[in-house]
């Protein structure tokens, strides 16, 4: 899992990191105009599936950069401001999901899809936990608010999105990759 290709940082990672970030930013922005399902205080952000997919397909650095820069772009585009801890949390979400890359050989195979979704959910847990807990220092909230008010809704919403949309993205990607031959 920690072989050279997993942690390599070359032209491919720079370009796909930028593409992942731009897609994540645009889709976060587009969420303002597309009616998305919500339940209670849980909102579902389809952009998260794109971030997890880029991590799984291109590795942890791409996932990390797409998360950090993409969240910053999405916030900037929507005019929310700059919240470093949530951007870093999104980066960690992509980085952990990217650890699945070395374990995946066939994007169509059921066991590989399960691995990708599993690592994706682990990424969601790590990233959202980081962002929620750092909010205790940045925003001065207590641990109950961090876990119940911030982490739980973010974790549930992002997990559902990952479980539903990442397999669809992987199957579509398998078809594109086989046509392209690399």
């Amino acid at each position, binding site marked *: 899992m920690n072989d050279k290709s997993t942690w390599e*940082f070359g*032209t*491919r*990672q*720079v*370009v*796909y*990191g*930028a*593409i992942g*970030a*731009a*897609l994540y*930013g*645009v*889709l976060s*922005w587009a969420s303002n105009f*597309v*009616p*998305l*399902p919500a*339940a209670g205080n849980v909102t*579902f952000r*389809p952009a998260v*599936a794109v971030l997890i*997919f880029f991590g799984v397909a291109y590795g942890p650095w791409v996932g990390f*950069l797409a998360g950090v*820069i993409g969240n910053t*772009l999405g*916030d*900037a*585009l*929507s*005019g929310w*401001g*700059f919240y*470093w801890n949530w951007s870093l949390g999104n980066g960690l979400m992509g980085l952990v999901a990217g650890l699945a890359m070395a374990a995946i050989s066939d994007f169509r195979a059921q066991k590989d899809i399960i691995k990708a979704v599993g690592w994706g959910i682990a990424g969601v847990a790590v990233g959202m936990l980081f962002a929620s807990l750092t909010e*205790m*220092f*940045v*925003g*001065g*909230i*207590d*641990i*109950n*608010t961090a876990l119940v*008010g911030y982490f739980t809704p973010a974790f549930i919403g992002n997990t*559902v*999105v990952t479980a*539903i*949309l990442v397999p*669809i*993205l992987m199957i*579509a*990607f398998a078809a*594109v*990759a086989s046509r*392209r031959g*690399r």
Partner: protein
Amino acid sequence: MLVTWKYRPRNTFIQRLDPRTRLIFMFSIILALTVPEIWDFRIILPLFFLSLTLYLMARIEWKDVRRVWIFIFILVIFIVGLNGLLSGRGGPSSVTNLPSPVLFNVPIKIPFTDIGWDVPITVSKTWFALTQITRMFTMTLLAIPIPYTIDPNIYGTAFRRMGASDKVSFTMDLAFRFLPTFARDFIITMDAQRARGYEIEKLNGGIPERLRKLAPFIIPVVMQSTVTGEEVIDAMDLRAFGTAPRTWLKQLTYALRDYFILGLGFAIFVACCVLKWGFGFGGYFVPEFFSNWILGL
């Protein structure tokens, strides 16, 4: 252009500052309040007014930020403030540990059961909620103007000059360039799917079903972008990207005003640390005037 940045050039002091100065100053204030854990209103209030002054100096039009402020007000006042008022947690232990007069009790009952209890609202919790709201606004006032006042084309250069590697900075720069293209692709895809009878406004079914129905909107753009990526990689490799340090078209230089703001940010951070750790000044307490005022109501 189908996606527009919130940025607009304005001839203001804030926009004349180097973007690095803006980011470093914001971090200095966040660290000054959080690292030495400042909860004293005599420090927080001047910093709040400093942030407010800088925010107003940015001259951002109200119609641009109205939606953002509504969201921030709901978050800070109703979620953070109300939580502070009811629980008193999220700050120093002295908020709830030290004896404080009870103003009134809020009865809380678990629905459909007889289980319930009274939550006392004390003078200390009330002052804490006000302090916490002010503390959060102090930091938010510095964060909100950033997308409105920093040119999107200089983020990459700014991060490079702040110590990020060429590759990371170039990723950021490239992302800014890709963004309008992908936004256009999303809108074209949405229009194309609508022409085929796909009504994004009328997604129905359960949550999994509705999320699954978003796939025709997302998949084409994501897959097309992976193909575009390969072409860009080939073009960059042909130009020997990453084989030697690169130069950047846009240059950033600090002016005297930048040194002043950077010095101010550094001085505030050092002063907060020295006051708290050196003199024990800056911790939480309820001022007498507030206790007298609220108990006299």
